[in-house]
């Protein structure tokens, strides 16, 4: 979330591009192979899940899921 300098209104509703939660701080980003900055993410788990889309689609059998609890924003 980006608030105005006077704090009276919202300038940008900023969300994690994976889980969709509002991001109140800068958030996390990564740079892809083309040099594009991708984000924001609310946690390392979200970043990993986002990066793993293709691998999951091609996976045969169940997908092992890492725990997200210690990584999500409070």
């Amino acid at each position, binding site marked *: 979330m980006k608030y105005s300098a006077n704090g009276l209104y919202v300038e940008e509703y900023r969300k994690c591009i994976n889980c969709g939660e*509002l991001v109140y701080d800068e958030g996390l980003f990564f740079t892809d192979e083309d040099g594009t900055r991708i984000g924001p993410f609310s946690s390392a788990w979200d970043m990993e899940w986002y990066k793993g889309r293709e691998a*999951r689609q091609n996976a045969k059998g169940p997908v092992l899921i890492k725990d997200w609890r210690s990584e999500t924003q409070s």
Partner: protein
Amino acid sequence: MNLVDMNIVDRRLKSIAEEMGIVLMKTSYSTIFNEGRDFTCGVADESCELLASADFQPAQVGGMPLVVSSIIKEIPLSEMDEGDVMIHNDPFRGGMHTPEHTLIKPVFFEGEFFGFSVAIGHIAEVGGMVPGGFPGEATEVYQEGLRVPPVKIQARGKDVEPVWKIMLANHRTPRQNHGDIRALISAVNRGESRILELIKEYGPERYREICTDLKDYAERRMRAEITSIPDGVYSFEDFMEDDGVTDQAYKIAVDVYVSQDKIVADFSRTDNQSLGPINAVLSVAWSATYNAILHLTDPQIPRNSGAFRPIKIVAPPGKLVNADFPAAEVGGNTETHIRICHTVVGALAQAIPERAFAPDGGTHSNFLFGATDERTGNYAVCYDFTGAGWGGRPVADGHNATNCINGNSRMNPVEVFETRFPWRFESLGLIPGSGGDGEYRGGLGVNKVLTCLSDDMEVSFMSDRQKIAPWGIGGGGEGQNGSVLIRRKSTPDFVTACEDSNKTSASKFNRIGFRKGDQISISSPGGGGYGDPQERSSEQRAKDRDEGWV
């Protein structure tokens, strides 16, 4: 962990939430509260986690932690005092939809902060482009009513008058809304006093320990339930049939990943957000997913934030399940919630068919109107809904005429409705044969026909399931679609809103004028059937016929 103390505190917290709801119901002015019970009350701890909620509105339970934490992001604890009450309805800052107002009151025991008393209620009139707050043709949130960011409505027990004045100046029914907001405040006040009694009884430290145990216990119970579901990826899709503005259907797609004791519900394949007002916001996606999983797991698991910890929801921005500001969104919480919830059930039905059930009618048939009541001279606004058929289950037929899966609300009694509003009931009854066939039949929808008794009546509608029927499960048949039809006093036939008023959608429309003698016929859909119809016994079929269910 002392299981006895933990269970007692769990039940006490739940009864506190129930008592808050009863206070709210008995002191409110609008029928949406005192008859419909479209509210939820709960208790949150100091980290904004839900400790307990009452069995009122499932639509509001799963999103409660998100909406409470979003308030704290904007009004930090350091700025809260004893006696403060905060109000908030902004769907793009953690709220559910514009009419849903969340009130929270911090609980301080001997100066120390212990959490919040929380009441969330659907205010029936919030301004915007139609009376009743459900503009079926809205294309941006500004048209759907006044957005209230997290602000104090009471500070140290006294009204913050400018907030009241701004809000009530933007509502069509300020007297009713004033009464309803006071009722919400009464609810959080009652919650605060009961929580304080509980803390005093157990002592601050012990109370905290028990609450921590309670959440951890709920988490363990939910993890054990998830572990019993076979690992895998289960996918399902369903549709909203249109958005009120265009004739386009919108897909809701979910991939549910079950891995050991965790679930990820990933909605990335869902269609992008709509132009019209069927968009869900994030708290709706959360509530709907939790709602589905709570329906499929042991109902004895305490419904607190601990039970939600093993569930992760992926709802990327800009999708129908997490629309971006300033999208129109009022139908997301009532209509799209149902579809999201049953899409998750449909996915997990592949893994645990013995626990799954067919979908309900999938719409609340939200009927909104405003008019001058000649009997009183007052301008009356109402948000009314109609129960639908529920889906067949592995052990029984679906319920008839029951508010859909996110509602748990009640229909207005005829006598109350006719007393409060300028309409006359011509008929009200179940629709035989509207439930889907199956080993266990879907429940029946409802038809009601009303005659208008005012010359300045304006009717709006927000529903779905008029084109795409509720599906069956395990070979069960589809439920029957619903409808909304209009008959003018001077014409013999009922017609759709498209035919009567050139509307794009027959299920979602704004402000159609009615005069005395005009009629509306509202039919809610039936539920889907469960299991192969061949498995339904001949005795049961004879009973269905003899008792008029089909």
